[in-house]
């Protein structure tokens, strides 16, 4: 699949924002490290909302006909994209309510915090299912896709939360542990995803054409002199060496470096978070670039 940069940015930025808000609300509920101050919660909350909003704005850049974007709220019953739009839109007023509850020290703020957590998880899940529900793309059509989106969003969110925690009187040890645990879980989920991708087992061209022949089937001519929408969108070839370099960057920047930084120098949490986000941009780019659609078979790919 051709990686669209607007979508790569959208999923990483919104994922981090949603992860941050969910963890922030949980940290507030359980008074993690003695609890966060009102100022910390408000600034962390604003940061999360800015990240989510930036992601959503970026996702609309991907639309070829944005004047109809409002219609995306109308197919909640069937479409994951529609569900994501509805829940994401509901997320902002809910967060505003929660932050107001924090600011005015309202007794119901714990209840609002719980709702923030639930809705953040729901939005992340819906985003992931936009891709995870697509049957023609074998690499995506697995529960590992939502698992990856949830864990990676929370890993990057935990590093941002560590940065928020470190700028106050809060004990940061639990926040460091939280970030390390989520980074490890995210790395494990990513490892499982990559292991599954590497395994063969996709359809062949002969199978996709449905002709019963023992002979090998190959493409003679795709029938067009220049590229088409289909070849541009679905026939994306990625050089092996380039993919390997990017994967190394994912492991180094996405997981290893932020974990080391967070453990050794928690006051450099912002740097760790930024490194992690850069690594996740590479991870998300690969998520698209390495995914192979059945349409690639009809254009001559041996196996997808």
């Amino acid at each position, binding site marked *: 699949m051709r990686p669209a940069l607007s979508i790569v940015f959208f999923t990483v930025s919104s994922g981090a924002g949603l992860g941050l808000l969910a963890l922030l609300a949980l940290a507030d509920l359980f008074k993690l490290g003695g609890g966060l101050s009102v100022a910390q919660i408000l600034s962390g909350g604003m940061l999360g909302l800015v990240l989510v909003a930036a992601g959503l704005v970026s996702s609309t850049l991907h*639309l*070829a*006909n944005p004047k109809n974007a409002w219609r995306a709220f109308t197919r909640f019953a069937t479409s994951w994209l529609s569900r994501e739009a509805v829940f994401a839109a509901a997320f902002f007023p809910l967060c505003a309510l929660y932050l107001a509850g924090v600011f005015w020290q309202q007794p119901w703020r714990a209840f609002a915090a719980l709702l923030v957590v639930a809705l953040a998880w729901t939005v992340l899940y819906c985003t992931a299912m936009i891709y995870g529900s*697509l049957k023609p793309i074998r690499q995506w059509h697995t529960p590992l896709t939502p698992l990856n989106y949830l864990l990676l969003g929370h890993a990057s969110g935990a590093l941002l939360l560590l940065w928020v925690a470190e700028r106050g009187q809060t004990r940061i040890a639990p926040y460091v542990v939280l970030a390390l645990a989520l980074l490890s879980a995210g790395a494990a989920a990513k490892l499982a995803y990559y292991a599954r991708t590497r395994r063969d087992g996709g359809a062949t061209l002969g199978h996709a054409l449905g002709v019963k022949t023992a*002979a090998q*089937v190959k493409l003679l001519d795709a029938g067009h002199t220049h590229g088409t929408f289909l070849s541009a969108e679905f026939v994306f070839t990625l050089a092996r060496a380039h993919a390997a370099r990017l994967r190394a960057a994912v492991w180094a920047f996405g997981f290893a470096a932020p974990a080391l930084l967070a453990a050794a120098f928690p006051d450099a949490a912002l740097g760790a978070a930024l490194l992690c986000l850069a690594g996740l941009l590479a991870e998300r780019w690969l998520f698209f670039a390495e995914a192979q659609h059945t349409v690639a078979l009809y254009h001559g790919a041996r196996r997808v």
Partner: protein
Amino acid sequence: MKLGLVIDLDTCVGCHACAVACKEWNGGSALSGPLSDYEPYGKEPSGVWFNRVRHYEAGEYPQNKTLNVPMSCMHCEDADCVTVCPTGASYKREDGIVLVDQDKCMGCNLCTWACPYGARELDESSGTVKKCTLCADRIFDELLPPGDRQPACVLACPTHARHYGDFDDPGSNVSKLVAEREGFGMLPELGYKPVNRYLPPRPMPKVPVHASPQENGSAPGLAQRVAGWVNKFIER
């Protein structure tokens, strides 16, 4: 009703007449036209097509066979392209035809990803996704003579490799063809239940391969010498 096409892979010669006729009819159709072209006279011509014909080869020479495979929307019974659409622009009608409402589509492309067969294309000029309409604006047009109430591709095919009809009716020409020739749908394991059926190529007689006399190391026999002489004689 379950309207769709049968495509005979045995007789299709890969001439692209169906694709061109489709482009011509639907380019002027109010349902989804125009079908935009980008740089049509430039170095890299490209554009929107509802029906694309690709050419494959099965096996190695001389036991090889060319397969010409036209592909367009299969008007699936369980069409995920419709399920994933967030705007409701994509829909399936009672008669089975899957359409995109051009006034509702926001161009998110998700349906093109959900279609395993590459049947949907984004028109960059309108910003909307377009696809085969099964010529919904032809097949029910009572102003046309009954014989013309068929999709443009079916009418254009010079080898009669394309047939249109109702798969719900066991007596229809398409149902009969599928029963006779073991018609199949593509990628059934994905569960889309594509309606369009393909008729497989008939089995090909094995091409006999003789080693040439030089390779045999023996002098040509009488029969071979006569055959060579006759061949020379009747050349041109």
